């Protein structure tokens, strides 16, 4: 009984997920795309629950939905993409996208159909695997992930610093000159303009 419910749940979630993903890549309003993306990610959290990874589902909602999507919405706002209706991609580009994406999909499905997945390590997932996950992350033995965990924290720090540095590097003053030559912004361009006008 429960199996049937879970199976049905899988198919419903999968259908929703695929539809929402299609909406993400096709909608012309970028803010809506962000909302659809949020839906896809929520569906994924459901998948994680179905797969028995409760902690991961929580993290998915916390980090992805709560953090990354918000960040993306910020990006949308800061680049003033909200006001604009994004132009349709050109037909050629679309066709290229279809061909490549379909090619990839066919390729993958063909591969999966011909491959048999064997269970490598017998056993069942620990019922509450959050504790197991925590132990894995902090285990510095040969099976543990303490070092990658620490490296990851450095990566996040680097990304944060890098983000700040990149975002504030180019000021509008420096670029303004380049975009408006001929208005006497700099001596070099000014001199050039006068000679042109003089002749």
């Amino acid at each position: 009984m429960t199996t049937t419910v879970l199976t049905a749940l899988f198919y419903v979630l999968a259908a929703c997920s695929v539809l929402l993903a299609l909406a993400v890549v096709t909608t012309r309003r970028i803010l809506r795309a962000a909302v659809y993306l949020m839906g896809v990610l929520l569906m994924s959290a459901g998948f994680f629950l179905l797969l028995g990874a409760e902690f991961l589902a929580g993290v998915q909602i916390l980090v992805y939905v709560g953090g990354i999507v918000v960040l993306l919405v910020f990006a949308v706002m800061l680049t003033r993409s909200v006001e604009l209706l994004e132009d349709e991609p050109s037909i050629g580009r679309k066709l290229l996208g279809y061909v490549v994406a379909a090619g990839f999909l066919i390729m993958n499905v063909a591969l999966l159909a011909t491959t048999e997945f064997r269970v490598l390590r017998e056993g069942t997932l620990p019922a509450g695997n959050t504790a197991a996950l925590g132990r894995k992350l902090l285990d510095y033995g040969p099976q543990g992930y303490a070092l990658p965990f620490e490296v990851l924290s450095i990566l996040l720090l680097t990304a944060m610093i890098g983000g700040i540095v990149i975002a504030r590097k180019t000021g509008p003053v420096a670029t303004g000159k380049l975009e408006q030559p001929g208005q006497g912004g700099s001596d070099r361009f000014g001199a050039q303009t006068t000679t042109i006008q003089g002749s």
Partner: protein
Amino acid sequence: MMFQNLGFMLNHTWLIPAIPFFSFLLVGLFIRPRSPKLAGIVATVAVFAAACCAYVLAWEYFHLFPAGTERHALVPWNFEWLRYQEHLAVRAGVLVDPISVLLMVVVTTVSALVHLYSIGYMHGDQGYGRYFTWLNLFTFSMLGLVVAPNILQMYVCWELVGASSFLLIGFYYEKPSAVAASKKAFIVTRFADLGFLLGVIILGYYGYHFFGELSPALAQQMGQYTAGGVVDPFDFAYLTHPEVLSKFVGLGTGFLGVSLLTMAMVLVYMGAAGKSAMFPLHIWLPDAMEGPTPVSALIHAATMVVAGVYLVARTFLVFATSGDALMVVAYIGAFTSLFAAVIGCTQDDIKRVLAFSTLSQLGYMMFALGVATMDHPLGYTASMFHLFTHAFFKALLFLGAGALIHAVHSNEIWDMGGLARKMPITHATVLIATLAIAGIWPLAGFFSKDEILVSALENQHYGIFGLGLLVAGITAFYMFRIYFVSFWGKARSKHAEHAHEAPLVMLIPLMILAVLSVVAGWVPMGEFVSLGGASHGAAEGAHHGINWAVAGPSLFVAAIGISVAWFLYGSGHEERSKSVASSLGGVYTTIKRKFYFDELYLFITHKVVFRFVAAPIAWFDRHVVDGGVNLSGWITRTSSTALSRLQTGQVQTYGAWFVGGSIGALLVLWHLMF
């Protein structure tokens, strides 16, 4: 063998070439751009310092080995220069033996005096600083050549003197004739050096192979000589070792029935003949007079051109072992001495006459070496002796001619005349030099020439002896011809009328060289320079008894030469010379045009080489080689234009290519695995 108690200069012989070298760098890089005047002074002081070092070295060396003892060749300083294999290396360094000491003294002395003279002669010239830079470079290269302990270092310095000679001949590079002359000198000597290089390669190749076959004891001794069991097949001490030489003889005949040793030595001699302007390769030297006159004095009279003689002397034992090669040296030398002397009688350019006289005297030195043998090596001493004296009086003649040209502004002797009273010091010094080259007792030329003739007679080369005697007479004739025409009689041009004496800085070298031209002959050369140490030299030295049976006739022919010159040119009846010339007719013209050798070379190069060799090669180069290069360029350009269309700048297109490529790669992998 080691000598512990070497003097300071013997230990530091490397200073002698090093001083001009560092002066060259200093003057050329730092002083010349700032102050040409200072450049001249620094260059001159440096060469004078080198000269003083050379004197101290000579004193120390001949005290270490006093007369009557065997004089060893010392290598007080060397370093590994090139290493080919574990046991094959070339060590550069300095070699001190009697002839290198002699040459060092001559080169530094003449060079120092020429530097001093040039301060006056080149005064106000635009390339003043450049001139002294090249002069320093030349002095360094020549000293490097002289001290070379192996034939490879000698070859390198040989090319360096060639390069500096090229630079100095073409010093007035605005003049097309000077440019042409410098190119001619460079190409002719370069062509000759090709032979030299081939000879060096043959000697080195077999020298290395013999090392393994030598008896172990000797190999060890040789190894010690050439530092730590390492073969230096180019080392002179190795090449001239009797056992190595006997191995060479054992090689037997090689190509066309000529033994390999003879072939190698004739090739080496080809290089020597190029540098010393022996007969078929003589054409560059008269044209080289386009350079400044002090350069002609230093390079094309006293030092560089004797490098060929020096090379033959240095490898004399190898030449003597071959025998045939030595005969080539003797006959080419003798022929050149006559040939050049005859042309010298007809030339009107004072420097060209001196150039032909240089050729003639170089021929003298060469045949003196050629007639020497291992048992009667007097010719070896005589050749070095003549090199020594000739350097002084020929440099003096050139510098004197330079003073005349400076005063008259012309090279033509017929623009001069009556200069004896206006330029008394120049006149006196040039007269001394002229008498010296004519071989009049008691001046330098007499003794060395006498010794050469004695050596020819002693070794039963009667033909060469007679020829030498004849050349002595002709030499006296043409030298006094230019002397009478330029100093006696009355002025033949405006400049000659208003000529005045040269400045003191030019006269001092003249006077010093005049003194040297007088006393150089009294140096008992046999006690200093002789083959195989003291065994022969002291006994056969010419000064212990001048052979009057030879000296008498040679003085006699010189007197005849001078009288004929006086009769034709000095007595004020110039129509006599013209009538002689016209009565000789075609013969005179042929001689005056230098036997049409320049024309012959031009015919060969232009008509034969250019048309049948160079033109097809040029066509091939222009159409096939260049065409190939252009084709590859065209292909690259076209294909890159086509490919650049792919570079749309659209990152999404690139992404599509990337994903498509991954799919393709995956397909290939799949195909390979199943």
